[in-house]
């Protein structure tokens, strides 16, 4: 028994040392990571930018909206396939690091963000920011809510980089994943196959998913963002970009979202319902969710007009 105890002790010491060493090295890599996957986009903004107007969202925000059309002090901050969980945690981090936009927060939301069927995604959104587990109270609490024993995983320094470490190793080779002079905008180049992709995605659309506005978790995250904006006197505008083809349930869910936002007196620009004809040209689309560069520029101009219309004329 004593021999076994000694063996285990030696192994734990070795494991602890290796874990701390690798964790320390990955922390260094993370801090230098500006490639947009693995939160490089967020890192870039936290270290090198401070916008007047900030556009936050998923790939539909950073691929579809060109912030330069809104002005030089506008920045688009997002990660592909992220939802309200990530947005809420990021905005909390921005508040903590005093990097909240000085004037306006444009939050890009899709109606599916509020569907309780997608609550698992909200959870994984938060875990995507687990680097900040010990650095941010909101993220710490949200991760611990998942399970009473979740903290055990974070006894390891390596675990904070679980899932993104290989990307961290390869990212320095890739530099910055977007052009800094484009303020976070990641334009998609058009290609010959785009229209085929659009049509294939339309054919695959899940028509069984019913309209829903039922996720209490999503509402909690949204309220958290709203509270931060109110506290810091920041104008909050919600937008939903158009789809090349949106099915009826999706539009109905957006309507439920519009009613929710109306009750809270938050301006909402919904392109799902009222998409200008100029944007319905398939040549402007990369797939059913994203514009190509030309489409993004045209859409951004339309969006700018509508946002300006929300404000009283000077």
């Amino acid at each position: 028994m004593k021999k076994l105890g000694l063996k285990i002790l030696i192994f734990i010491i070795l494991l602890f040392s290796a874990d701390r060493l690798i964790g320390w090295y990955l922390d260094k890599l993370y801090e230098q990571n500006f490639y947009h996957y693995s939160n490089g986009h967020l890192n870039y903004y936290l270290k090198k930018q401070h916008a007047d107007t900030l556009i936050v969202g998923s790939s539909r925000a950073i691929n579809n909206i060109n912030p330069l059309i809104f002005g030089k002090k506008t920045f688009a901050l997002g990660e592909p396939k992220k939802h309200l969980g990530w947005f809420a945690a990021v905005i909390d981090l921005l508040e903590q690091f005093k990097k909240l936009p000085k004037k306006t927060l444009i939050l890009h939301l899709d109606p599916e963000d509020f569907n309780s069927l997608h609550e698992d995604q909200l959870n994984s959104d938060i875990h995507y920011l687990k680097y900040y587990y010990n650095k941010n109270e909101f993220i710490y609490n949200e991760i611990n809510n998942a399970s009473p024993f979740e903290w055990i995983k974070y006894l390891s320094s390596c675990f904070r980089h679980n899932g993104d470490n290989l990307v961290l190793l390869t990212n320095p080779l890739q530099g910055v994943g977007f052009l800094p002079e484009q303020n976070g905008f990641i334009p998609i180049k058009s290609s010959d196959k785009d229209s085929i992709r659009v049509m294939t995605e339309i054919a695959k659309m899940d028509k069984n998913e019913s309209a829903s506005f039922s996720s209490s978790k999503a509402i909690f995250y949204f309220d958290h963002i709203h509270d931060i904006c109110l506290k810091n006197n920041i104008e909050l505008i919600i937008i939903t970009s158009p789809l090349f083809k949106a099915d009826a349930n999706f539009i109905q869910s957006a309507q439920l979202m519009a009613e929710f936002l109306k009750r809270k007196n938050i301006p909402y620009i919904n392109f799902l319902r009222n998409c200008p004809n100029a944007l319905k040209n398939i040549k402007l689309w990369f797939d059913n969710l994203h514009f190509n560069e030309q489409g993004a520029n045209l859409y951004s101009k339309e969006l700018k007009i509508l946002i300006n219309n929300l404000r009283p004329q000077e």
Partner: protein
Amino acid sequence: MLFNSINFLVFFCVVFTVFWTIPIKYRWILLLISSYFFYMCWEPAYILLILFSTTSDYFICNNLTCSENIKKRKIGLWLNISLNLGMLVIFKYFNFFQDLIKQVLDIFQVSYEPQYSNWLLPVGISFYTFQTISYAIDVYRKEIEVEKHFGKFALFVAFFPQLVAGPIERAKLLLPQINFPKSRFSSQQFQDGLILIIWGLFQKAVVADHVAIYVDQYYNSYVNQTGGALLFATYLFAIQIYCDFAGYSNMARGIAKMLGYELMENFKTPYFSSSITEFWRNWHISLSTWFKDYVYIPLGGNKKGIIQTVKNNMITMTLGGLWHGANWNFVMWGIINGFFISFEKIIHLLFPFKFKWLHFLKIFLVFNLICLTWIFFRSQSFEQAIDIIYSIANLKLKDLYFVIADNRFSTAILGSIFLFLVELQFPNQSVTEIRKKHIIYRYLIYLLLCISILLLGSSSGMQFIYFQF
């Protein structure tokens, strides 16, 4: 509660500590309560099924199946089998048989509206029902004594390390261990158990769960995928299913070992087999030996000539396919395996020569044939499997480039290479044999495994594939 979850880690630490602290006579009670708690973490109501299966099997075996009167014994056996298979039919095959009846009646132009059940499939039902059926048959054959102690029999049915996905233990191996448990803690067993758990977790969390992302991505949108991508996804699925199930089995054995129990080995480097027959000797051993002992041999095995052997092979493998799921693609998967095994038997009969130099070529060929069968196993339907085979048959090599160019792919490939390097180190033996290696080598491997799990392991605790069976 999954073995690869933090909740299970806490649960097991508590069970382990209390188990080795309390007097030996109370340990079975602790394990029984823990096993029921473990099962109820999925769906509390389904514990009633285990209780029903346990109680009925216990009373039937004790009153009928073990009787000296042959008629009573037969009645007892058929009652045992009917009740257990009945549960399987109701919960697993009900909708499948409804469809089958409709298809048959459609041929005779008789209208029939199937009434589908919405019941969830109770996790592990195929495993514990087969375990209790094997117990009843062994009692009937007088190969084992009937278990008189109800509580210990209940533990045999519900022993948590192997309850939900096997290995399907035999009563002659597990019951004596429950009746006469090891009184002393063995540090050797503890270390072996820990190695198995870490190795199983690596297989599951680092390899299988990462590979699963690609397999799901390609198979779920197979219509839009190229033949190259689907071929690649099929090879990846071969790795996924092996690491998922072998990982679970290793963890189950490791957990049992740390509590002083030995479970049977379920996998012995199956992808290094040089024949399909050998593959099935090394793959899901507890199930293949179950079918051999309780279906293939009672049907006559290979003792009644080649035609009868082929027939027995086909029946056994088809049932094996059906055991995996109530779907035609599983049935077809079983039939194809049965066909390959039968074909091998005929070839061996016609050409009884052995060419050692063909060994590696045979391994390569067997691996590819098995991968072909996996297409049926992974597909959602028979039609999907055919579409995928058609796409693969028309593949263009340049399509493979786009799959390999995906940089997230590296985790899956790195894990797989490491896995096969370790398997090559211990051909046909347990990974616990690592203890015979030099201490520095051993500790380096342990550290590498633990750090890999922390860094690369899927942290979300993905479900094991075999839980659905």
